[in-house]
């Protein structure tokens, strides 16, 4: 069974940065109503850099693993850099995602973009 690359299974079983922040600077929820996947992303920003991040949510293994991995990827990064983040950055880091599940994998990235556009 391979569409669930080891990185996805690993993040699904041991999610990173899961929980909530007190008084986050960015607090955004993105959902895929058709399948019920929900990702909440919270960022604390200092001097234009992501100082801390948390995610919470529910849904499929791919969306939740992608959210976990994304928090690892963006921590310590300047917002300016994150604004240029492409789909491929996340998909490659996940080890590739099959065509039928791209929407799931990209849900947390949509949350991030929504949060950054209002930040």
């Amino acid at each position, binding site marked *: 069974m391979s569409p669930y690359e080891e990185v996805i299974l690993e993040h*699904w079983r041991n999610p990173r940065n899961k929980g909530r922040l007190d008084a986050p600077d960015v607090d955004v929820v993105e959902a895929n109503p058709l399948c019920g996947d929900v990702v909440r992303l919270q960022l604390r920003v200092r001097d234009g850099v992501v100082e801390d991040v948390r995610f919470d949510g529910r849904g499929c293994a791919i969306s939740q693993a992608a959210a976990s991995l994304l928090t690892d990827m963006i921590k310590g990064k300047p917002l300016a850099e994150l604004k240029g983040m492409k789909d491929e950055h996340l998909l490659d880091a996940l080890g590739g995602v099959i065509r039928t*599940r791209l929407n799931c994998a990209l849900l947390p990235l949509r949350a991030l973009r929504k949060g950054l556009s209002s930040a």
Partner: protein
Amino acid sequence: MIDVKAVRADFPILERKVNGRPLVYLDSGATSQKPRQVIEAVARFYREHNANVHRGLYQLAAEATDLYEEARAKVARFIGAAPEEIVFTHGTTEALNLAAYSLGELLVGEGDEVVVTAMEHHANLIPWQQLARRKGARLVPVGVTPEGELDLGELAEAISDRTKVVAAVHVSNVLGTINPVPEIAELAHKVGAVVVVDAAQSVPHLPVSVRELGADLLAFSGHKMLGPTGIGVLWGRKELLEKLPPFLTGGEMIREVWLDRATWNDVPYKFEAGTPPVAQAVGLGAAVDYLSSLGMEEVRRHDLELTARTLEGLLERDYVTVYGPTEPEARGGVVAFNLRGIHPHDVATLLDQEGIAIRAGHHCAQPLHRLLGIPASCRVSFYVYNTPEEVDTFLSALDRVWEALG
């Protein structure tokens, strides 16, 4: 007994592999696979008889018309109806939209009520929502018991003198529940309401006689019963069809046309505006022949055997929740379920890696899923070409999904 090996040999697609494994197709509730008899009937129509129907004064047009009308007669016999009671549509959805629109024009006004159930497919819900909105009528939903059955007590209370239409599904595409249409019809007819049945999951799988059901209008699709996509049926009692105003208008459905007005053709042609799906109707006729040669009692028995085996296997796995009646006899050949804490999409994707095709999602029944308190579910559904071994393959693959993600 159905000779499944012989049946399988008729379905070319079952020879193919998916992700290196033989295809195990468990999504016939969404659409069935097609036997070569149907594929060839459609191809032969285009190769040898193609012309528009009911118009041309030449040999080909006469042949095409005969084949189209012959298909109508076959479908009529299949459900115990008269040919003029069979309206060809593009599918169940169009048939139900026709029913809702035309019934609405005929008999639904402000303050009237339309009774629906909480287990409807969106195709038998949204047309009634739209009708209620258009006419200022009220939609009255009837709930589902914890056992996954229609709440008949609630139904009896919901039906009143204001009820003009009762719309219900015959076999739920999620719970598998077989609803007691004769009882529903009796309750509805007491107040003079019209009964509309979504039979998309029943006509392909159960012996259905429209007279015994006691409904007034009944809709189903060709593609779920071994036929082509793009063809569906609305059956209606002749006297009701004659009273109903047309839905789609244009060519073919008219008798006389002036610049400012028109009169309508006889039933069923009054409801068949434009060029109908002729080749698809011919394919549906071949599908009906195929099912009739197997015998619908045998088709039902085969579904039941596979459903019972599936239910038994799922219920003995403590990580699985099954939705709907636990008695196989109370169901059609569909079983919806979830794995604890695992999203149905993950289950479907992992099973696909083993060549097993199942459905995962809300199955066009969002209100029912809301009632069940889940965003989505997995669903397996069977047909004449599925085997007990495929059920076992599916069940053991489910154990591997649980090991991987549970």
